[in-house]
């Protein structure tokens, strides 16, 4: 490098002092702006966090309130189901008791008219039909079917039908399947 190039390249001269003051002022302003930006960011962050918290709390309260509402309903529903089950069970028990009485009582003809007339208001008995369908018959008819002795059948067709229904009624009383009986009773109650 030529001599003059070196001289010029390394030439130094102090700038006016006022320049630093301006630079310092500008840096300070930049700092303030940055701080404001920082504060703004912080504000946005905390604001967003608070908003998110409020939303979560709100949704949470909705959820729990809904559950609170559901809990008594569920309890009531459970209670209702329990009562209904008990009612069905009682109905089945009574149904079976009446059938047993009709089938096994030696004084069959009196059964329908007397035995259960005042004991319950059950107008019909439910028996399982040939294909398992619930069939409702009155206690009187049930008594007639069971007590039919085929001695003077008016027609062979009637005789066959009576025999068939006797079998059905006997098999109905022999059923040990509680679920089948519950279903049967429930259907019969609906029909009632």
């Amino acid at each position, binding site marked *: 490098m030529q001599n003059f*190039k070196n001289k010029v390249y390394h030439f130094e001269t102090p700038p006016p002092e006022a320049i630093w003051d301006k630079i310092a002022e500008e840096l300070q302003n930049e700092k303030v702006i940055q701080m404001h930006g920082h504060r703004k960011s912080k504000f946005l962050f905390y604001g967003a966090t608070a908003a998110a918290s409020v939303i979560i709390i709100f949704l949470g309260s909705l959820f729990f309130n809904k559950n609170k509402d559901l809990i008594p309903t569920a309890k009531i529903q459970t209670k209702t189901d329990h009562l209904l089950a008990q009612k069905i069970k009682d109905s089945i028990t009574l149904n079976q008791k009446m059938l047993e009485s009709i089938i096994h009582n030696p004084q069959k003809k009196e059964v329908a008219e007397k035995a259960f007339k005042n004991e319950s208001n059950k107008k019909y008995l439910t028996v399982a039909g040939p294909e398992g369908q619930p069939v409702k018959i009155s206690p009187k008819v049930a008594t007639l079917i069971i007590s039919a002795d085929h001695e003077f059948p008016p027609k062979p067709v009637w005789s066959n039908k009576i025999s068939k229904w006797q079998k059905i009624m006997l098999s109905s009383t022999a059923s040990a399947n509680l679920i089948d009986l519950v279903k049967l009773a429930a259907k019969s109650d609906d029909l009632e």
Partner: protein
Amino acid sequence: MTAQSNHIPSESDLIKGCIEGDPQMQRLLYQRFSSMMYGVCLRYSDNTEDANDVLQEGFIKVYKNLVKFRGEGSFEGWVRRIFINTSIEHYRKKVKLYNVSEVQENTVEDTDLSALDSLAAKDIINIINELSPGYKQVFNMHVIEGYSHKEIADLIGITEGTSKSQLARAKGVLKKIIETRVGK
């Protein structure tokens, strides 16, 4: 002054302190480089007012861009480039470079400027400042800073040919100025 304030921080400490926004470190960085960079600004500027503006603008850029300094090459070189670029930007609108006719390369190299060697730096800068802004930029960048014509072309936004022509013209004008002064 306390003993601690007399402690001269290393370049990396200065950089780190400035990045963290430490006013004391910013001041120390300014003190370390301001005279040197003011010399650069004076060479590229038409007057001291413009040089002052470029110095201020350049230092703000230095502080803002310190995080980008990767430590590749000298820090002083990095700072100097910022000031040269700031000077170029400052005068980009002012300076109008004309695409002059191509001048033979040997004519450029043969221009004898050795008369400048005997002058003081301040006087040399005064002579350089007599050049038009366009000539001055190219002369400073190529002869003093050592930029290639390709680099000058990219930085200023001219062709390499224009850069060479500008330099040739600048040298010719300088020679005439020197002859005039010597003749006096």
